[in-house]
């Protein structure tokens, strides 16, 4: 009785039972059950086979690329997404609405299309690629290309998360800091960044998560050389094409666990920062 009471606290809003029921149902049907199936399938392998598949040199290389490039892309987005969101929130310029709309394009575009587009631009004879080639930098078919694709895919997540947070930053705070003698860089470092840090973390998480799962756009620009430019999702597809469902499931389970650890860590940092900062401005 008492435990039930604690679980379902009386609320002014009716419908808790109904909404909680739906939440459980959808989470189970769409997230938990398929994941459980994945783990089960991977679990039905022999331990030795499992270890062999997930620790093969090719698999290890793909993990490095998938997670490394994703983290790098999310990191790039952290910086440039911030600048983008800042200029959209703080300044008035002619094409502001247009640029604001363009931000969402990577959301809407089929990822394969963005992959093809990027490849044509960054290939050695592409618009940008030919100049980079002169400088000795090859983008397409290298890990750099993978990072570029993942950055594009993650960008809207960062910008859209940061925008409302930046709008919320009270001008008064900056004004106060300025009257107290702080210069612009100091205000940015000590006042603005700490204030929007939670949103930046969230944006980073989303961009990272999206990048880890990305497949379509990467396979075109990556060139897919084993050990070098092969991402884990591609490796899974390769296993599938060889009808090695269990191998695919094993790799999937590893990705699942690693992603989960990364996301959980970020969320914990987030929650810790949230507690340290403030529940709400007012």
């Amino acid at each position: 009785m008492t435990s039930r009471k604690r679980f379902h606290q009386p609320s002014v809003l009716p419908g808790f039972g109904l909404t909680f029921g739906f939440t459980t149902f959808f989470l189970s049907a769409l997230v938990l059950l398929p994941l459980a199936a994945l783990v089960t399938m991977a679990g039905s392998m022999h331990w030795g086979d499992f270890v062999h598949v997930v620790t093969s040199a090719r698999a290890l290389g793909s993990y490095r690329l998938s997670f490394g490039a994703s983290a790098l892309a999310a990191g790039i987005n952290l910086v440039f997404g911030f600048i983008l969101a800042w200029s959209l929130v703080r300044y008035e310029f002619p094409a502001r609405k247009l640029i604001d709309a363009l931000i969402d394009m990577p959301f809407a575009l089929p990822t394969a299309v963005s992959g093809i587009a990027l490849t044509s631009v960054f290939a050695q004879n592409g618009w940008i690629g030919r100049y980079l080639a002169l400088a000795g930098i090859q983008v397409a078919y290298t890990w750099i290309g993978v990072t570029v694709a993942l950055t594009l895919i993650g960008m809207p997540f960062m910008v859209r998360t940061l925008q409302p947070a930046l709008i919320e930053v009270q001008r008064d705070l900056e004004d106060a800091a300025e009257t107290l003698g702080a210069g612009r860089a100091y205000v940015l470092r000590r006042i603005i960044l700490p204030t929007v840090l939670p949103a930046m973390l969230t944006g980073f998480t989303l961009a990272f998560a999206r990048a880890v799962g990305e497949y379509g756009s990467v396979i075109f620009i990556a060139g897919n050389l084993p050990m070098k430019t092969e991402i884990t999702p591609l490796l899974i597809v390769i296993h599938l094409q060889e009808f090695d469902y269990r191998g695919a499931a094993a790799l999937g389970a590893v990705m699942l666990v690693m992603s989960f650890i990364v996301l959980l860590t970020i969320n914990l940092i987030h929650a810790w920062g949230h507690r340290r900062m403030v529940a709400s401005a007012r």
Partner: protein
Amino acid sequence: MSITLDQVTKRYQDSTVVNDVSLDIGDGEFFVLLGPSGSGKSTLLRAIAGLTGVDHGRVALHGRDVTHLAARERGVGLVFQNYALFRHMSVADNIEFALRVRRMRAADRRARRRELLRLVALEGMDERLPAELSGGQQQRVAVARALAHKPDVLLLDEPFGALDAKIREELRRTIRQVQRELGITTLLVTHDQEEAFALADRIGIMNLGRLLEMGRPDDLYARPATRFVATFLGAANLMLARQSVRGVSLGSDALLAPRFDSLHPVREHEVVAVLRPEEIEIAPTRDALSSTFMADGVVGEILFCGALERLRVRLSDAATGAHVLRSDDGGEGPFLEVTRTQHDQRRFPVAPGLEVTLGVRRLHVLPTPLSSFTACAASEELAQALTREPLLNELATRMKTRIAVDIDAALGSPAAESSASEGPAILGAAVIAAQPGARQCIERLLQRGAEEVLVLPDNAAAPRRVLIHWADETARRATLAVSASLLRHLSAEAVYVGILPREGHASAPRPMGMRALLDARSEAQAVHGFDMRTELRFGEVARELALRLGESQAQLLVLGISDAADLERRFATLVANPGWPLLVVYQPGTTARAYGRPRTTDLLRLA
């Protein structure tokens, strides 16, 4: 002087948010800038802090011109309405922020922080986060933070706005105490007059971007110079009264202020009288009054407000001619607000509907020349149409005054030399529509005793700039007085246009050009407390004025004359049928063809 503002002006697009504000705040003074929201007071504060640039004018702190310095170089402390504490920092970090920026040693920082926390009575709160403090405590932290770097001046922007009454009073006391202890020059911005009274050494009152009046709180309350200040600072009944040699009366024979310190005898004319609710006495009969009898009335509603009782009393006899100007709530009929103490209530308890006699203990007459408006036209319809003119309505509403109607057939055929008999004297400013023959209409109205004639084109927009010019020095004072009165109710910029004959043009005697310009400006400032800019042009007067008026939209011309014949002689083309609002101010000199009477402003000079 700690803070010196010189003709500070700030514009946002079309509107002038801060309009020619000049102000001197002395060392260690607590100055309160009071005004309704949107009056430009916060913008002015931000301009002083350096957070907003100014479009015109100068800001100086301790004699140092800081107009072009960034906020961080000005050395001011600023406290915001919403505290603006850094929420991710502890109280200690917030307070030490300015010291950290200045790279002060940690031990010194700690010592200074302790001192400040003691000052605002928050000892031991160092490690709390702002979210863990109450609103009042947060604002105390904000005050301490603003004082950390020992600023020369402390600026407070509605610091008590978000707090409830009890805490507000407590914090008010703290701030006053801190201010006294540190002897720091303080400028506080608020819309709360009670706060202003409680804190201020001096109060400045802003409206429509203009600093209307400033002075000691008691002085401003007892002797306001403008309607706005009279009604904004405390409650006030504004009435149109008649002033004559015998004193001030409300239309009836009853004299309210028999011993009026007039400088010389005057003919009867209209003035605006201020009656504070607490200066009105109510009694059962005329004999029971201990003050001067004013009128009879019937008690309307009664509101009990603790220490005071607030009554609305309807003047029962409209025939007294007393005209109560509408107060903000715009209640029906001529109501007077009266407040009584408990003591008075016990001596003479009243109930709604009771007939009472009203007496007045003290009366203040505003030195404003524009008391009311009279729409003058040849027919009833034309006059009614004129009363609906947007600009006239806006002015009347802001001045809280009435628009009377006057039908004068002679205005219909102005071309015919006005042989028609003189009508009754016109009270207040006369208003006519702009039409061909406007000049003859103006002359006719001046003949009938009008001292100001406002000529309005159809649907004239509210002016953004008021041009001021007088034909000769005799008209200067009156023109300035009327301009000041007008500008207090418009958010327009004032420009005095001085016009000199061209070089080598020997026909006109050349006045002392620049000198006259500066004199005009300083007189406007000293006598009327309003600031204007000055321009000097060369050429033929009417032509130059017409050119100036053609330069931009939404302008109004105030034209001062002392000789009615000048209208025809010098300004005929200008006033024939003006396409912009024109206000003619008539101040007859001794030798000129005199229609009018001596002006109120001659009698009542501002201190």
